[in-house]
C-alpha cells in the first residue's frame, strides 16, 4: 500500500488569493476545494480544511494524494478568498485600546494575566539603598530541531488508530487525539520512533498528528505528513519574545530587598503552552536568590504571528537573562564583585521560597565558587584590555513539573466534566515494567519515556540495571510504543531523569525483591541479607563487609549480622540468571513494576502557585569570556566555564553533553538568533540560511564541571540538567560583552550592529570591569 503525502495550503503557498495572500490576519471568507475534489477523481487526492488563519503560514487546508507532486498540483486548484484584517505584531499594539480582537474570548487580546505579589514592595523599595529599573527585550527564537515534525497514521481494521509521530510527549498526543476524536485512549496507539530533537517544539500535539489521522480515515490508507523547514517556522511554538520591565532594590551590601517584574509576552496567534509560560516567567526567579519581597505582573498577549510555546527553559531564559544583567549592573554600581553579590543573595538548601516553592538540595554557592576558581575570575575581572570581556550568569530549573497539565484521571476527556485542581497527582506520572527473559540473561524495560536524542534511554537503562544488580549490557529498553510501554508523561520540564528514573528503579527493585527468596535459599541465608550486584547474588557481609552494599542500590542496606549462621557448604555467590530461572520454574514470568508520583501538597495556595513546583531544583553558574571586534561589533565567544548542581549524576557524560549543547545553543540565541517579521507579519528568514544559529566554527571552548550534591527526592540523588543548563548562559554572554565594550545591550540578540550603534552613542552604562578609558572610539 503506498504512503500518501500531504501539503498545506498556506498563505505563502502556491495558491493565489487575488493578490491578497501574505498578510498576517485574515478571516477565511471562502475556501473552495471543489476543484481539488473534482481533481481527486483522477489525481487521487483528499482534502481536509478549516476556516480561519490568524497568522501567515497558518494552514487552512490539507491535501492527501498518491505522492507529493500530485498533492502540490491539487493544492493549486484550491481557491481561497481571504478577508484581510490589519495585523497586530507586538503585544503593545495588540493590547492598545480599540485593537481588533484576534480571538473574541480574549479582551484586549490578553490571553493570560498573572498577578502575584509577595510581601510589601513599596516599603521594601523605600528602605532600599539602591533601586534600579531597566527595560529588557527578548527575541523570537525557534528550536530548529534537526528533524522536522512528521507523522504517519493509519487505522487498523478493528478501529484502532495507529500514529507514528516525531514527538516529545507520546502520552499527551494520545490524550489529545482521544479528546479531539472523542475516542477511547485505549483505541489509540502512538509510536514514537527515534526523534531528531525537540527542545520543546515537539511537546504538544501538532496539526500533522490530527490531519494525518483524519486523512487516513478518509482515504482508508496510511498517510504521511512532514513539515518543510519553512513550515516548521510557520508552525512555530518557539520561545516567547518577552518585553520585561524589571526593578530591583538592594541594601548597602547588595542584599536584595525587593524585586518587581512586569512582562509582556508575545504569544502569537494561539495559546499553546502560553499560560504556563507566563507563570514560569515569574515563578522561577525567586528560586535562585533570596528575594523577600516580590511582585510579578505577566501578560501573555495574542499577536498575528505563529504561536509561541515551550522551549528549553520554558519561559525562564529571557527573564533570567534580564535579572542577571540587572543584578550585575547593581553590583558594578555598588562596587561589589558580581560573583560576590550572587553569593550574598544565593539560595540555601531546604528553603521555602517567597512564592512557596520547596527547595531541597542546593549547592548554588559551590557552583559560584567553582566557576570563579576555574575561570581565573579574580585575575581577569576588571583587568582585561578593551575588547576582551568576562561575565558571569547563573540559573536553575525544575526537575519535572510538580503537576500534570491535565487534571483528573486518564479517561476519555468528555466522559465527565474537568475535575477541580488538587495538589496531588491522581495517577503516576511515570510507570515502568521490567520483564526478565526466561533464561535470566536479559531484562526488558518498558516505559513510555520519550528518547528525543537527550539520552533518556541510556540513563533509564542504567537506573534499571543498577536496581536489578546486572550490567547495562543485559538491559534492553522499549520506550517507543504505547501498546508495549506504560504511560510516561514525556520529555518536558526536565522531568525524565527524576520521575522516570524513579519508576524504572522501582520496577527493578520489584524484580529483585521477587528473586531474593530464591537467592537466599541457594545462599543458605535470609532474604533480607541478599544483595544483587554485577550479575550475582551474594550475602552482604561475605563480600567485604557492610561497605560492599551499594549505597545507590539500597536493597539489602539493612542486612543483619546473622550471616554466621549460614551452612558451611553454601556458595558465597550465585549467578543472577540462575536465580531468575529458579523463579521462572516456579512462577512463570518474572515481571516487576514501578511508578512515580510527585509529592503531594507542593506549592502555595495562590492562583498559579503550582507552576514552578517540583520535587527538586537544579542550580548552575557560568563564566563566559569573549572578544569583541570594536570596529565591526562582532563577538567571538571564546570560552565558557560552567559548574552545575544536578544532584548526583546518573551519567556524567550525558550531563556534560547537555551542558555543552546548552551553551552553544544559548550563546547563539544571545548573539545571533532572531525570527524576523515584515510589516505584514511574514517571516523574513524561515530557513537555516537566514536564521543564523551558532555553527561549530563559532562554538566556544567549554569546560563543564559538576559540584558534589545529593538530592534525597531524586533517584540515586539525581536532579535535572537539560533545561537548567541553558539558563546561566544568556546573562553570562551579555555581561561578558558589556565588560569588553563598556555598553550594555538590553535587547536580544546582541548583534554586532547593536554593539556598534551603542558604542557610537557613547552613553554607556558604566561597567566597572571594562578598561574602557579609551572609549573615544571611532
Amino acid at each position, binding site marked *: 500500500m503506498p504512503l500518501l503525502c500531504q501539503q498545506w495550503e498556506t498563505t505563502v503557498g502556491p495558491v493565489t488569493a487575488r493578490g491578497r495572500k501574505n498578510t498576517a490576519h485574515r478571516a477565511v471568507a471562502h475556501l473552495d476545494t471543489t476543484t481539488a475534489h473534482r481533481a481527486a477523481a483522477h489525481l487521487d487526492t483528499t482534502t481536509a480544511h478549516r476556516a480561519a488563519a490568524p497568522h501567515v503560514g497558518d494552514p487552512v487546508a490539507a491535501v492527501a494524494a498518491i505522492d*507529493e*507532486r500530485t498533492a*502540490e498540483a491539487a493544492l493549486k486548484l484550491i481557491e481561497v478568498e481571504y478577508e484581510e484584517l490589519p495585523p497586530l505584531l507586538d503585544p503593545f499594539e495588540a493590547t492598545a485600546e480599540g485593537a481588533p480582537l484576534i480571538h473574541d474570548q480574549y479582551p484586549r487580546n490578553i490571553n493570560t494575566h498573572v498577578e502575584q505579589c509577595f510581601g510589601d514592595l513599596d516599603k521594601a523599595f523605600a528602605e532600599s539603598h539602591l533601586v534600579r529599573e531597566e527595560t529588557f527585550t527578548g527575541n523570537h527564537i525557534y528550536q530548529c530541531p534537526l528533524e522536522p515534525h512528521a507523522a504517519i497514521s493509519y487505522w487498523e481494521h478493528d478501529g484502532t488508530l495507529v500514529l507514528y509521530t516525531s514527538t516529545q510527549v507520546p502520552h499527551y498526543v494520545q490524550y489529545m487525539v482521544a479528546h479531539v476524536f472523542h475516542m477511547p485512549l485505549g483505541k489509540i496507539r502512538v509510536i514514537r520512533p527515534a526523534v531528531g530533537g525537540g527542545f520543546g517544539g515537539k511537546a504538544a500535539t501538532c496539526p500533522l498528528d490530527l490531519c494525518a489521522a483524519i486523512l487516513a480515515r478518509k482515504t482508508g490508507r496510511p498517510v504521511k505528513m512532514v513539515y*518543510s523547514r519553512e513550515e516548521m517556522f510557520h508552525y512555530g511554538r518557539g520561545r516567547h519574545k518577552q518585553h520585561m520591565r524589571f526593578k530591583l532594590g538592594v541594601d548597602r551590601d547588595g542584599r536584595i530587598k525587593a524585586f518587581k517584574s512586569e512582562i509582556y509576552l508575545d504569544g502569537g496567534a494561539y495559546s499553546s503552552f502560553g499560560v504556563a509560560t507566563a507563570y514560569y516567567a515569574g515563578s522561577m526567579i525567586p528560586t535562585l536568590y533570596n528575594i523577600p519581597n516580590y511582585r510579578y505582573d505577566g501578560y501573555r498577549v495574542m499577536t498575528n504571528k505563529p504561536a509561541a510555546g515551550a522551549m528549553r527553559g520554558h519561559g525562564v531564559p529571557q527573564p533570567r537573562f534580564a535579572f542577571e544583567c540587572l543584578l550585575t549592573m547593581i553590583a558594578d554600581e555598588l562596587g561589589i564583585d558580581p560573583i560576590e553579590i550572587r553569593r550574598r543573595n544565593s539560595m540555601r538548601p531546604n528553603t521555602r521560597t517567597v512564592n512557596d516553592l520547596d527547595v531541597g538540595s542546593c549547592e548554588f554557592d559551590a557552583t559560584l565558587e567553582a566557576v570563579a576558581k576555574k575561570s581565573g575570575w579574580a585575575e581577569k575581572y576588571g583587568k582585561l584590555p578593551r575588547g576582551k570581556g568576562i561575565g558571569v550568569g547563573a540559573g536553575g530549573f525544575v526537575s519535572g513539573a510538580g503537576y500534570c497539565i491535565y487534571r483528573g484521571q486518564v479517561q476519555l476527556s468528555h466522559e465527565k466534566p474537568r475535575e477541580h485542581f488538587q495538589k496531588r497527582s491522581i495517577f503516576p506520572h511515570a510507570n515502568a515494567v521490567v520483564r526478565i527473559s526466561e533464561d535470566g540473561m536479559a531484562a526488558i524495560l518498558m516505559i513510555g519515556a520519550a528518547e528525543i536524542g537527550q539520552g533518556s534511554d541510556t540513563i533509564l537503562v542504567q537506573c534499571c540495571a543498577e536496581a536489578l544488580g546486572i550490567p547495562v549490557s543485559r538491559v534492553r529498553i522499549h520506550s517507543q510504543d504505547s501498546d508495549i510501554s506504560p504511560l510516561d508523561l514525556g520529555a518536558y520540564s526536565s522531568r525524565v531523569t527524576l520521575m522516570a528514573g524513579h519508576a524504572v528503579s522501582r520496577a527493578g527493585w520489584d524484580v529483585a525483591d521477587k528473586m531474593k527468596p530464591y537467592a537466599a535459599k541457594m545462599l543458605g541465608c535470609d532474604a533480607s541479607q541478599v544483595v544483587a550486584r554485577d550479575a550475582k547474588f551474594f550475602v552482604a557481609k561475605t563480600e567485604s563487609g557492610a561497605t560492599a552494599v551499594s549505597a545507590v542500590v539500597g536493597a539489602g542496606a539493612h542486612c543483619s549480622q546473622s550471616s554466621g549462621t549460614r551452612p558451611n557448604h553454601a556458595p558465597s555467590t550465585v549467578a543472577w540468571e540462575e536465580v531468575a530461572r529458579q523463579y521462572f520454574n516456579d512462577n512463570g514470568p518474572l515481571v516487576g513494576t514501578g511508578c512515580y508520583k510527585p509529592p503531594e501538597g507542593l506549592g502555595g495556595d495562590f492562583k498559579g502557585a503550582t507552576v514552578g513546583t517540583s520535587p527538586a531544583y537544579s542550580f548552575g553558574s557560568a563564566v563566559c569570556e569573549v572578544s569583541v571586534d570594536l*570596529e*565591526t561589533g*562582532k563577538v567571538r565567544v571564546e570560552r565558557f566555564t560552567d559548574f552545575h548542581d544536578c544532584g548526583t549524576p546518573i551519567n556524567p557524560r550525558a550531563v556534560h553533553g547537555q551542558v555543552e549543547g546548552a551553551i552553544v545553543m544559548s550563546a547563539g540565541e544571545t548573539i*545571533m538568533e532572531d525570527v*524576523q517579521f515584515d510589516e505584514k507579519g511574514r517571516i*523574513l*528568514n524561515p530557513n537555516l*540560511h*537566514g536564521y*543564523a544559529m*551558532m*555553527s*561549530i*566554527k*563559532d562554538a566556544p571552548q567549554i569546560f563543564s564541571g559538576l559540584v558534589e550534591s545529593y538530592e534525597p527526592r531524586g533517584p540515586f540523588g539525581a536532579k535535572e540538567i537539560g533545561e537548567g543548563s541553558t539558563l546561566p548562559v544568556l546573562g553570562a554572554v551579555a555581561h561578558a560583552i558589556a565588560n569588553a565594550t563598556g555598553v550594555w545591550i538590553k535587547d536580544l540578540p546582541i*548583534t*554586532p*550592529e547593536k554593539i*556598534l550603534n551603542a558604542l557610537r552613542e557613547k552613553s554607556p552604562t558604566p561597567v566597572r570591569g571594562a578598561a574602557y578609558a579609551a572609549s573615544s572610539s571611532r
Partner: protein
Amino acid sequence: MYIPNVELHECESVEQAGALLTRYGSSARLLAGGTDLLVDLKTARTATAHLVSLKRVAALRGIKLETASQSNNGYLRIGALTTVAEIDANPLVRTQYAPLCDATRDMATVQVRNLATIGGNLASAVPCADLPPILIVLGASVELWSAGGSRTVGLDRFFLGPRKTDIRPGEVLIAIRIPTIPPGFGAAYSRFALRNGNAIAVASVAASLALGNGGSITQARVALGAVAPTPAVVDRAAGALIGKTPGEDAFHAAALAAQTTSAPISDVRGSAEYRRELVAVLTRRALGAAAQRATESLT
C-alpha cells in the same frame, strides 16, 4: 519542494553544450555545481525547461600555469568547472595566488565548496558572491567560448546587474585567467559575516596594490561585494592611493571612496548604514593586508 519538470542534457564537450544552447535558446540554462541553480529551481526563484550540464566536460576542469608569451606576461588558467575546494587545496594557488584563498577558505560550507565551481560563482552573478571581488582586484578575466569564436572579458566589466552578466546567447564561460602576480604586488579579501561557518557575506572588500621602488603605491584596486547590485569596482580608490605611502591616511581616503561607491540595502543580516560602516572597516583591513603581502613579496 521539488525541481519542476526539466530536461537534463549531459554534455561531453563544450561544443555539444554550445549546440544545445543554440537549439533551446532562452529556455536552457547551463548547470555546473548546481549549488545556486538547483536551489533556485526548487524554490521557484527561477524556471527553465532545459538544463545543460557541463559536469562531464573534463576539459573545463583543472588549474594550469600558462607561461609568458608575446601577448601576455603569463597567467593562471582555472577551468570553469573547477570546484572551490579544488582551488583552495591547489598548491599553485596556495603559493603563488594566496589572496584567492582568502575567499575560498571560508566560503559557505565544506559540502558546498566540494560542489560549487568558480565558473558558476561568477556566472550566477549573485551580488554577495565571494570570488568576484578578489578576482577583480587580481585583474582576472574570463574566457567566453561560442561556436562563432571566443573572447576574453575583464571581470571588472563582466557583471551588468544582479544575476546578470556579459555572457551572450550561445556563449559558455570556460575558464578564468589570473595574471601572474609580480613582486611588489599584494592583494587581500576581507569579509564580514554574522557567524564563522556557513554564512553569506554581509559586506566584503577585496583590495590590491603594487609598490614602487620608493615604497609608494603605483597601482591600486578595490572591489566590493554584497553592498551593491553587482560586485562593485571602486574607481576612485586608485586616485586616493596611487603615489601615497601605504598607511592609515591613504587607506582612510580609499575607505571613504569605497563607502561612496557602495549602494547597500537593508535586510535580515544588517541595515544599509551598518553595511556602509563595514565597507570602510573592511577596506582599511583589506588594504592593510594587501600592503603587507606586497611588502613581504619584496623581501
